[in-house]
């Protein structure tokens, strides 16, 4: 990197390029740290395949088999779903995507608190929908690689016996298999929450603390 900037130091056009689009020193350091981490992390060089992604979802679903038929209450189901999200999903990355640009201005404690609340919020909202909408056992049909992600395709039945399509998006970008999205009949949870949280933020003029407190009050 040093050679690169030294070579172009006296070129006016490249100087503009360096100050405009090149990463800041802090960011360069972060990138260097990341690549160093990648070199030492054994998981990063070991990509997932479609079968492993399928197994990952299978393991998660084993935790709440027979969605509607089991005897547990809604609250118990939501608690189990929340635990499964934390264990099998990458809630931090989903929370980060939902918070969008505000993630970079959030303090460490804000982003930690938001991630925590967001996990409960996701579990409550989607646990209830999943339980009511797909009220029978979820059967995995197939899995495939999709861009840098894996898509695990499954079918459940609604109370009126209509087939419900649920796709589970699994990523190995963090170095291990993690669930990042649940797509119910084509509707992406990640997409819906990015849109919802952005709308909530803009209503609160971007105030993250108010957002956290209001989400907390909803639980």
């Amino acid at each position: 990197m040093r050679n690169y900037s030294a070579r172009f130091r006296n070129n006016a056009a490249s100087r503009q390029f360096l100050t405009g689009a090149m990463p800041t020193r802090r960011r360069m350091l972060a990138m260097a740290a990341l690549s160093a981490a990648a070199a030492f992390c054994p998981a990063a060089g070991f990509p997932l395949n479609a079968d492993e992604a399928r197994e990952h979802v299978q393991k998660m679903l084993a935790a709440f088999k027979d969605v509607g038929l089991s005897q547990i209450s809604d609250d118990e189901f939501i608690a189990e779903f929340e635990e499964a999200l934390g264990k099998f999903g990458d809630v931090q990355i989903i929370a980060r995507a939902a918070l969008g640009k505000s993630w970079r201005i959030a303090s460490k404690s804000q982003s930690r608190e938001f991630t925590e609340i967001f996990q409960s919020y996701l579990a409550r909202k989607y646990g209830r929908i999943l339980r009511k909408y797909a009220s029978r056992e979820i059967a995995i049909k197939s899995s495939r690689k999709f861009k840098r992600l894996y898509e695990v395709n499954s079918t459940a039945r609604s109370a009126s016996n209509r087939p419900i399509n649920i796709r589970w998006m699994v990523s190995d970008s963090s170095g291990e298999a993690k669930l990042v999205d649940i797509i119910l009949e084509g509707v992406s949870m990640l997409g819906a929450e990015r849109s919802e949280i952005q709308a909530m933020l803009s209503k609160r003029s971007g105030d993250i603390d108010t957002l956290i407190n209001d989400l907390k009050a909803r639980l």
Partner: protein
Amino acid sequence: MLALAISTAAIINFALPAAGRMDEDPFEPINRTAHAGNLVLDRYIAKPASEIYGSAMPAEFANAVQRISSNLSLPSSALNQFLQFQFERGMHNSLRFIINSTIGIAGTFDVATYMGIYEYKTDFGTTLHNTFGMSSGPYVVLPIFGPSNVRDSLGFAADTLLNPLYWVVPSMDAAPVVSFNALAAIGKRHANATIIDPLYYESEDSYGQTRLYFTQNRDFELRGGFPGEDYFDPYIGTGEIYEELFGPFSE
């Protein structure tokens, strides 16, 4: 009539820009007004009515209403399937309509399913998409009928005109037709409460959430396979692009 609908669709198709980005919503101001009106109608009429309907009506009665209503949509489905070159499905729907309208007493009983003749739902919006390659056009919120887009609004109008209730019953006797449709709509509202209630009442941005739900779900129905090419990977560019969006990666 159908020819007119198709030629109108063709003209609009040329006028429409190629499939726009999902976040483009040129009719947003008027859509928001329509959505707000629909919310009021739902809060004070459709939702309470559907709750009463769901708890007071015997399930068998509600199911019979749904069966009659779906039987009446069969001629339109069948015609659309032929237009989509789905001949087997079209035959199923045609036979189904004949059997259930006669032996099944105007669709009250579903005899055809026992005979192995199933319903394949489709609509004119799907025909415009599959056969005529029409793009959806901008998002539209129809008063009373809810979320749609330009193409599917046209399709909805065509399907409505193809409903036998509108040819058989003379316009003088509109009251029973309207009340039956209202009853069927309330039953449908009840059956879909799990989806509609969170969208309308548990979101702070019910307009945005409803639009997203409709657009993605309709896309899924038409193309079968979500995610599409524009699917957002939350890890994308964990290097520069990612940091540009979200800040440094480490916690």
